């Protein structure tokens, strides 16, 4: 296994020039996730308006994989629907848990397909998933909040 299958150009690009970094207002929910094995952390905010994810912003510390993952996620999902975001989350999670046996779907994952190689490095899967887990958590909370507002 060559190391550049893991560190694809796209990942290094997103890492060196992250998109969406910095915590922004307004937001519907903020979450803080930690990867206890390595200490990587992310604070992630989503702003949801009706069905639409209007912003995803984040701050944190971590390796190229976790930082690039957050950047990709921002770029891919800002402006899409909550349903799209959850579908992408499911697809990305499946890809990561597939031990390198799953073909990624570019339609759904965009630049996220560059992470296919990560699935072969079990120790790094958690890095790639950190932002995505935070996203799902934040989405669930915003929906709860807006349901609460309705109720």
């Amino acid at each position: 296994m060559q190391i550049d299958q893991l560190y694809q150009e796209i990942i290094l690009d997103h890492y060196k020039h992250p998109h969406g970094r910095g915590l922004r207002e307004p937001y519907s929910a903020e979450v803080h996730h930690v990867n206890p094995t390595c200490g990587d952390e992310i604070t992630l905010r989503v702003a949801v308006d009706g069905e639409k994810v209007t912003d995803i912003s984040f701050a944190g510390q971590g390796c190229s994989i976790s930082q690039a993952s957050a950047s990709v996620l921002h770029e891919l999902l800002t402006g899409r629907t909550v349903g799209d975001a959850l579908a992408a989350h499911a697809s990305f999670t499946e890809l990561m848990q597939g031990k390198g046996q799953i073909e990624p779907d570019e339609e759904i994952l965009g630049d996220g397909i560059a992470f296919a190689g990560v699935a072969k490095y079990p120790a790094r899967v958690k890095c790639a998933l950190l932002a995505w887990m935070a996203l799902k958590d934040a989405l669930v909370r915003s929906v709860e909040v807006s349901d609460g507002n309705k109720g």
Partner: protein
Amino acid sequence: MTTLTIPDGMPQYSEEPRLDVARIRQDFPILSREVNGHPLVYLDSANTSQKPQSVIDAISEHYAMHNANVARSVHTLGTESTEAYEGARATVARFINAPRPEEVVFTKNATEAINLVAHSLASRLGPGDEIVISEMEHHSNIVPWQLLCERTGATLRWFGLTESGRLDESNVEELINERTKLVSIVHTSNVLGTINATARITERVREVGALLMLDCSQTVPHRGFDVVDYDVDFIAFTGHKMLGPTGIGVLWGRYELLADMPPFQGGGSMIETVRMTGTTYAAPPARFEAGTPPIAQAVGLGAAVDYLEAIGMDAIAWHEKELTAYALDALDTVKGLRIAGPKVPVGRGATISFSLDGIHPHDVGQVLDSLGVQVRVGHHCAKPVCERYGVPALTRASFYLYTTTEEVDALVRGLEQVKRMFG
């Protein structure tokens, strides 16, 4: 020899699964040893089992080729080691039909597994609360609850035993009541051999909303155990009695219960984040596995489960049942020998404890040892059972998949020799 017919209403064997003892014995290097000039006759498997070469090799191979710490490294050796460790967890989970591998917590032995649960209850227990055990327990399922009750003011209560060596369930309704927080019972007794029927207890436990723990240390090695089928909350068992290495045990618990439990020991790997001023904890099983876990031991235990499954637990259980029937008959011919525990080969495991009129078990064991026959003598870490049956100590012969009828014969011949010396 008694023909084995299992009464209606007891579990039946649809066919008779067979195993080839002679071939199995070749897998266990120690079985070709001599002791005091005689071939080794190892009848102490309830104390600890012997190890097949495949288990020994799995451990050596791990140290020689894949050794690294787990869950802490991104490097290749660390990844291999982590996969081996978590793979063993998945193997054990599958073996006991656990819904999730995260429900399997690796401890250092069965004793630690029980202490862990007892400790976790401390903050929720107080005067008026009750814990129920039985008179048939191993010390490891007595002392942790005594310590817990001392610390919290809760009350320890217990099932008595019938003359024939079974749980006395006559007062189950009163014993298990609204004050009961947890019932912890041995599933197979390490002294009497009794396999306890748990249906009535489980039902009552559910009625009053208590928790049920089974000490399966003597069950899992010999017939496996299905945690879903038995509808229990926790079980404990131990690696070294099931062909695996020393230094590893298992606590299985329902995930939602584990997730709700405070940590037992603090340290590396069980944390989420640590500040000098306070710490948050990881999810199970990591929360309960503080420090470097028994990595190579988990690998060895996984190999042991693989070995057991390749032979087949049904075949092992059936082999032991036949052997027990044979042994009960054979021991019946020894005058002055009294068996403590069920005298029929149903509802019992392959462990037979007995006394010989007027001869102390130490002397029995010593003479048998001079003939190569290894039995355990003493209180078997279960003094209350001994007291219940009015004996200070017992001699115990216990069998496993590698035990033969010839070894039972050697035991019986040895006992005659004992009687000649001390009679």
